[in-house]
């Protein structure tokens, strides 16, 4: 029933792959878990196995190479496996075709990544409005275009790269709206671009593609509303002030049938919360993230967190953090402890470089507070339970001053997504209504299962007193 392993790595994106590789190469026994069929996460997203792709992207090739090394190091991989809960003693509860129900790990490395930031504005729940990540998955994994007339709205170079990929795949991209008013703010950060040659090349070449195809790139602009009867038919855009508030009178309407929102990412820190790791509120890094030491260890001994799930910073940062955590976790389980500190030190320059890039990115592309004011009272904030901003405000007026109480009254956060989509939207709304900081409003406490799990997969029989049995179950 419960397997034991020295190091469990949750998430097989760049952070998890690097962590698994480093731990295994140091001699630890490693199990790598991912909810997808194939490894790579979003960053190294591969095409579906059934498609033959003649020209995988540079990222896809890099991912494949890393994967080969991971397999070569003897890491056990559990695909299509979800970690849905944690129990006493860092016991992980799993659900997947090849997975044991429980995994007892001496060290856990969380590399759970991040997900596109949901942004609420009138019409954002119309079919045709999707995240940039959704468009990425369709394109990279299935080679399907998300729509015919595509408008991208967001911030940061990723959506420029996506727009170029869409255009090269034959899509009609109407425009790319960038929320930041770049030129004024970029100058101090130019130094952070040193060493980021691949990113620069990718970014510039994407901009060039868009330029050549006549796709407008519009800094200081945002989406104000999406319109349509049963799906998106047009969008109203506007120019933004430096606080990201739409400037009245600057509105325009663009015809489109697809809207891709790329406003940054929210770290998936749910597991670290369940494990009891102390959290920090860092809006510049995406939101709530676990506090870590220089070995990427959280406040819970033996639990490490790396990559976007511990603070949005991109693939290369995730890889170096993963490597550090992998070395540290292996040392903790008695492998390679002697050379560990030195090996970690050797990664300092790369870590420093990626952190500089992370800081630059955060400085340029963290959305301003106005982002949370694009919604109106009749705008849905909780997609799952269809709770509007007016409902949330009414709950606050009734005396609720925390996300949890608003949830009890309105049902927001009780839906299938368990508050991932609406959490920060609701927190900001409460903060505005109560005049108190966002961190005080709080987020919805996670409870197991953190993803829906079939009842038939949960009814395991208790193991009575057997050594290695799940302690809680044995007590029955």
């Amino acid at each position, binding site marked *: 029933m419960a397997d034991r392993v020295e190091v469990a790595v949750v998430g097989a994106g760049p952070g998890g792959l690097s962590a698994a590789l480093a731990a295994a190469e140091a001699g630890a026994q490693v199990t790598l878990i991912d909810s997808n069929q194939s490894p790579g996460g979003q960053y190294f997203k591969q*095409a579906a196995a059934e498609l033959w792709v003649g020209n995988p992207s540079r990222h896809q090739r890099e991912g494949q190479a890393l994967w080969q090394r991971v397999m070569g190091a003897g890491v056990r991989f559990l695909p299509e496996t979800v970690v849905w809960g944690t129990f006493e003693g860092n016991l992980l509860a799993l659900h997947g075709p090849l997975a044991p129900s429980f995994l007892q790990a001496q060290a856990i490395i969380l590399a759970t990544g991040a997900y596109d930031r*949901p942004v609420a504005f009138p019409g954002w729940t119309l079919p045709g409005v*999707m995240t940039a990540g959704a468009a990425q998955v369709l394109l990279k994994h299935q080679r399907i275009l998300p729509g015919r007339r595509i408008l991208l709205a967001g911030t940061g170079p990723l959506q420029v790269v996506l727009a170029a990929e869409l255009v090269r795949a034959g899509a009609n991209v109407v425009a790319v709206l960038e929320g930041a008013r770049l030129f004024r703010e970029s100058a101090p950060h130019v130094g952070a671009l040193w060493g980021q040659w691949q990113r620069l090349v990718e970014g510039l070449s994407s901009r060039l593609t868009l330029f050549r195809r006549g796709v407008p790139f519009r800094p200081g602009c945002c989406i104000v509303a999406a319109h349509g009867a049963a799906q998106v038919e047009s969008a109203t855009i506007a120019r933004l002030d430096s606080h990201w508030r739409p400037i009245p009178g600057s509105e325009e309407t663009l015809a489109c049938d697809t809207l891709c929102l790329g406003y940054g990412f929210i770290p998936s820190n749910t597991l670290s919360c369940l494990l009891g790791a102390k959290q920090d509120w860092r809006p510049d890094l995406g939101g709530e993230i676990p506090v870590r030491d220089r070995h990427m260890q959280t406040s819970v001994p033996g639990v490490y967190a790396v990559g976007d799930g511990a603070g949005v910073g991109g693939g290369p940062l995730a890889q170096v953090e993963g490597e550090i955590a992998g070395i540290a976790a292996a040392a903790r389980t008695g492998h390679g402890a002697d050379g560990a500190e030195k090996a970690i030190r050797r990664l300092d320059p790369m870590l420093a470089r990626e952190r500089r890039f992370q800081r630059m990115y955060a400085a340029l592309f963290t959305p301003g507070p106005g982002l949370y004011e694009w919604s109106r009272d009749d705008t849905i904030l909780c997609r799952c339970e*269809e709770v509007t901003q007016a409902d949330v405000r009414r709950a606050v007026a009734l005396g609720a001053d925390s996300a949890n109480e608003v949830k009890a009254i309105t049902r927001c956060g009780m839906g299938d997504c368990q508050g991932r989509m609406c959490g920060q939207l609701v927190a900001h709304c409460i903060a505005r209504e109560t005049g108190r900081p966002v961190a005080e409003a709080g987020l919805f406490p996670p409870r197991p299962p953190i993803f*829906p799990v079939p009842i038939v997969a949960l009814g395991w029989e208790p193991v009575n007193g057997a050594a290695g049995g799940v302690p809680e179950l044995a007590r029955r």
Partner: protein
Amino acid sequence: MSPAVERGQAITIIVDGVPLPACMGETIAGALLAAGRKAWRRTSHGQPRGMFCGIGLCFDCLVTVNGTPNVRACLTPVAAGMVVDTGGKP
């Protein structure tokens, strides 16, 4: 689509009783989008929804597959003869 791609084997799935062409390797959501359908679910208040996050976190794209409700279309690969129901709640 990208030129150097061979799509997966062509199959048929049944959506709301009507055959829909799809290719192996696609998800149910992908097949629906490729067929031009942006919405395939109604919320409790009757609002249309389709794909939003694309990675199985938003639960907008739910369909019933071979009788099992609450299946995320964006994560579920198509299979020949799969029976998909989008109607009503849930």
